[in-house]
């Protein structure tokens, strides 16, 4: 039997997750609980129901369909209610407006690859390919390895986006099958890392150091969240750490944006960063300085691949 996993989205025409035109496959489940998370629906490894209050017309079809009796239309389940939800999707099937979405579906490698290969003609035109993201894709590392093998067999460029907070053996198993790693380095300071992601940062740093020894195309990505991780001191530490790694030459600084807010609401959670505004261009430049100072190539925004590719071509 071929491996299956839980996929929560397949996004075509993805432009910021590796070179060229890409399709990004989002695998569900993440060990981190970052305050700024853009995909809070990715955290729980199981399928879950998202509700968009704006699209709900209050017809009550969901209540009628739910074996347990859905609390009320237009409102996602609270944490307590989530614990008892069967995640059967009956309310989603009944919803006429699409206000209810079941996020996360079991999928085989063949099914995922059929979705990915739909855009092959554009991958070939642009030297693009497929990126596996999450959640944390390495939480489903066997499934991920099978996907990467299948993508390679199909001749696609492969990339993996990871937070690095996984057992080294998982990362080591995946590494030979990915052409590119997009590796998140969120916060250097251990205490701060725990505070804003809920996890220890040591494993993240150790894994990055080890990965850079066995893989020669690793890009470090740093989400810049004002007031959370944009202190220059911390960034200087990160810069020195990265500069010492053979195999990492590029750092992408990704300015925080608030797209996570609506998704937090749709999953029935409170958004912790409600008052944070995106960083200014000047602030982003200031954050880039420590990395440039140690000789790294810094790109602000997620499409640095294209710029560096063009530089390389010229």
């Amino acid at each position, binding site marked *: 039997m071929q491996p299956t996993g839980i996929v929560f989205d397949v*996004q*075509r*025409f*993805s*432009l*910021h997750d590796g070179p*060229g*035109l890409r399709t990004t496959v989002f695998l569900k489940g993440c060990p981190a609980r970052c305050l700024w998370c853009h995909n809070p629906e990715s955290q729980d490894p199981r399928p879950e129901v998202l509700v968009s209050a704006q699209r709900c*017309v209050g*017809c009550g*079809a969901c209540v009628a369909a739910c074996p347990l009796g859905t609390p009320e239309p237009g409102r996602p389940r609270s944490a307590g209610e989530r614990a008892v939800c069967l995640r059967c999707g009956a309310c989603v099937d009944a*919803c*006429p*407006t*699409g206000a209810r979405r079941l996020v996360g579906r079991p999928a085989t490698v063949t099914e995922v690859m059929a979705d990915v290969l*739909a*855009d092959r*003609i*554009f991958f*070939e*035109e*642009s030297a*693009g390919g497929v990126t596996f993201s999450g959640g944390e894709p390495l939480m489903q590392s066997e499934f991920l390895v099978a996907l990467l093998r299948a993508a390679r067999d199909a001749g696609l460029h492969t990339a993996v986006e990871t937070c690095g907070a996984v057992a080294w053996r998982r990362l080591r198993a995946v590494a030979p099958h990915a052409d590119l790693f997009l590796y998140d380095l969120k916060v250097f300071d251990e205490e701060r890392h725990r505070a804003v992601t809920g996890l220890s940062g040591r494993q993240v740093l150790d894994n990055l150091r080890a990965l850079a020894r066995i893989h020669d195309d690793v890009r470090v990505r740093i989400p810049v969240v004002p007031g959370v991780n944009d202190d220059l001191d911390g960034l200087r530490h990160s810069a020195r750490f990265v500069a010492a790694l053979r195999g990492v030459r590029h750092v992408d600084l990704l300015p925080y944006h608030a797209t996570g807010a609506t998704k937090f609401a749709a999953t029935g959670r409170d958004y912790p960063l409600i008052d944070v505004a995106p960083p200014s261009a000047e602030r982003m430049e200031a954050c880039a300085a420590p990395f440039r100072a140690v000789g790294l190539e810094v790109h602000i925004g997620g*499409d640095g691949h*294209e*710029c560096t590719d*063009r530089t390389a071509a010229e």
Partner: protein
Amino acid sequence: MNARTERLRSESLAARPTLSSERAELLTSFYRENDGRWSVPVMRARSFLHLCRHKSIHIGDGELIVGERGPRPKVVPTYPELTCHSLEDLDILHSRPKTSYAVPPECRRAYAETVIPYWRGRSLRDRIFPALPEAWHAAYAAGMFTEFMEQRAPGHTVLDDKIYRRGLRDLQADIAAEEAALDFVVDPRAHDRREQLDAMHIACEAVMLLAERHAELAESVAQREPDATRRAELERIAAVCRRVPAHAPRDFHEALQSYWFCHLGVITELNGWDAFSPGHLDQHLMPFYRQGLADGSLTDAAARELIECFFVKFNNHPAPPKVGVTAAESGTYTDFANINIGGLLSDGADGSNPVSHLLLDVVDEMHLLQPSSNLQLSRKSPDVLIEHALRVVRKGYGFPSIFNADAVVEEQLRQGKTLEDARAGGCSGCVEVGAFGKEAYILTGYFNLPKVLELALHDGVDPRTGAQLGPRTGSDFASFDELFGAFERQLRHFLDVKIGGNQIIERIYATAMPAPFLSVLTDDCIRKGVDYNAGGARYDNSFIQGVGIGTITDSLAALRQEVFETGERTLGELVAALDHDFAGDDALRQRLWNRTPKWGNDDDRADELMRRVFDAFFAAVDGRPNTRGGRYRIEMLPTTCHVYFGSVTGATPDGRRAGAPLSEGISPVQGADRKGPTAVLKSAGKMDHVRTGGTLLNMKFTPELLVGDAGVRRLTQLVRGYFKLDGHHVQFNVVDADTLRAAKADPGAHRDLIVRVAGYSDYFCDLSEALQDEIIARTEHSAL
């Protein structure tokens, strides 16, 4: 732009379109005096000569390229021999809020006293409608289809390279040679041919006379001109007008002026659809450009200035005003002249050259409503060409649109053209394919595909009126295939009605309204001695344009799923809900809109039904003979007709409300494409574009997506990918919805906002409110 062209441009933008009765009055007096004296072709040619001899001519301050169809820029003549406007029409034109035309009191008076009394009942429009059968009128009134030629002449055509190689005197020599070779003993049509050839000869005389009169005017203005520089320019203009189009042009300036006189001739002789177009202008101008630079007679700046002056001439010519249904389907000032850039040479080599880039620069700098421009992108075209074009496109003027030059060739080969003629061909109007200078490719009307389904769901009855419009094909279907069978029978019925009407109209034009000057410019009218409107062209295709492929595909997908697969509703329940426009059952409408397969998402459950509809439409049209020795073909484009068709079509099973616009071109239903641009292109790529004469795909991007080299490169990759799938055409709106909403709320502050509508660009503020809303609603593709 330099100071001169900037001024000419702003004058052109500021002038208000105004109607002139001069042409109508000249024509009326000539017909009153002479009708019946000569054969029809000679009468047409002599009346054309009369117009060229007596029309007011105009040379504007600072102009280098001269000649106006009306007495002044943006003054528009009328064509009462085709359509005689009523006084009520004139009042509406004068006062309507969108695309109005000022009607001066003297114009109205002339219509009341002279023009209407003569032409009412004699105009072609007045003769065409009574000639059409009852079934045609019923279907036309119901909005099953439109008819292009009920008020404008067959046109849709483009010039090739002949006038750059040969003058009208040379073509007159060809005409004389054909006349000399006529054999009245063995050829029963020799007399017809002689009359036609005589008419062509006179038509050449008329256009040469028009040029001579401009030469004389330039000389007399020059004599009074105090400024020495301008005096020299006017003397130069006079010399150019003495030379062309009688003789082949010798330099860049003469080449542009020669085309412009031919253009004026074609659009003065008759009011043909899509005016007239220069075709592969970059290829035609290249020899003159190269030679001018080499011998020092031309600089890059001078070439640019001349092209800019040339572009202003197009913008000075709003389309002659339409009436009735045709005004609704094509409510715009643009007259669809379209310039091809790039493409292939007739030997198959890449056709782009330095003039291609010059033209793109001018398009970029001037961003005028007219002329339209398009890039012909072949596999062989260098990326530098499309990247240049996309840098212009992303500014949001909608120009140029992008065509697949290799598919354009393949489409024409399928129609039986030679490889050389196919390569020398290209696109005009919105997206239509033709062999330039050698083909009459006539668009006959739009066809309302979703309305056909509506009738199939109602046993041939139009639910709007209760009339039994189509055959009785039942209303209870055991399977989806049975339902589709009923759709196909209705489809064939209405296409028969449409084609039957076309055949009558074509013969009326062939016998009553020849176009001798257009015939001179179109091979092989001279050789055959047969008019453009009667089958003289080397190739003769007639097109019917399918509208609403997205709406009908989604409707069929919804029907199949909800009625025949899940059994969620019975067909009777669903049809009843449509009849009530979903009143009291919004949950059903929501379900149909949100939970059924949609075209544009690379989802075969929908896309496969698009193919079935396409195949049925193709089978019912393609290859059927027209009256000119050619064939019927299909195209998939709407101009703005999807709005009119939507207004006469009830609620549809895809969740669309009664009266709302249909989907536009081959674009997905507005807002139904939810998987991004690559999925749209994949869906669109499942249509067999090669079997059409053109398809129109509109995509809208927010500006952020196109920033920098990376933005241009990814758009290039999307286009190249789509063209690998044999996609015919794609065009981009680059604008965000907030800008459009602001423009709608405050038109005064956004007068210059041009958006891509459907194969052409138009001022957003000139569009109807329904169309404005639709453009706002069209999905914004953004990966941000």
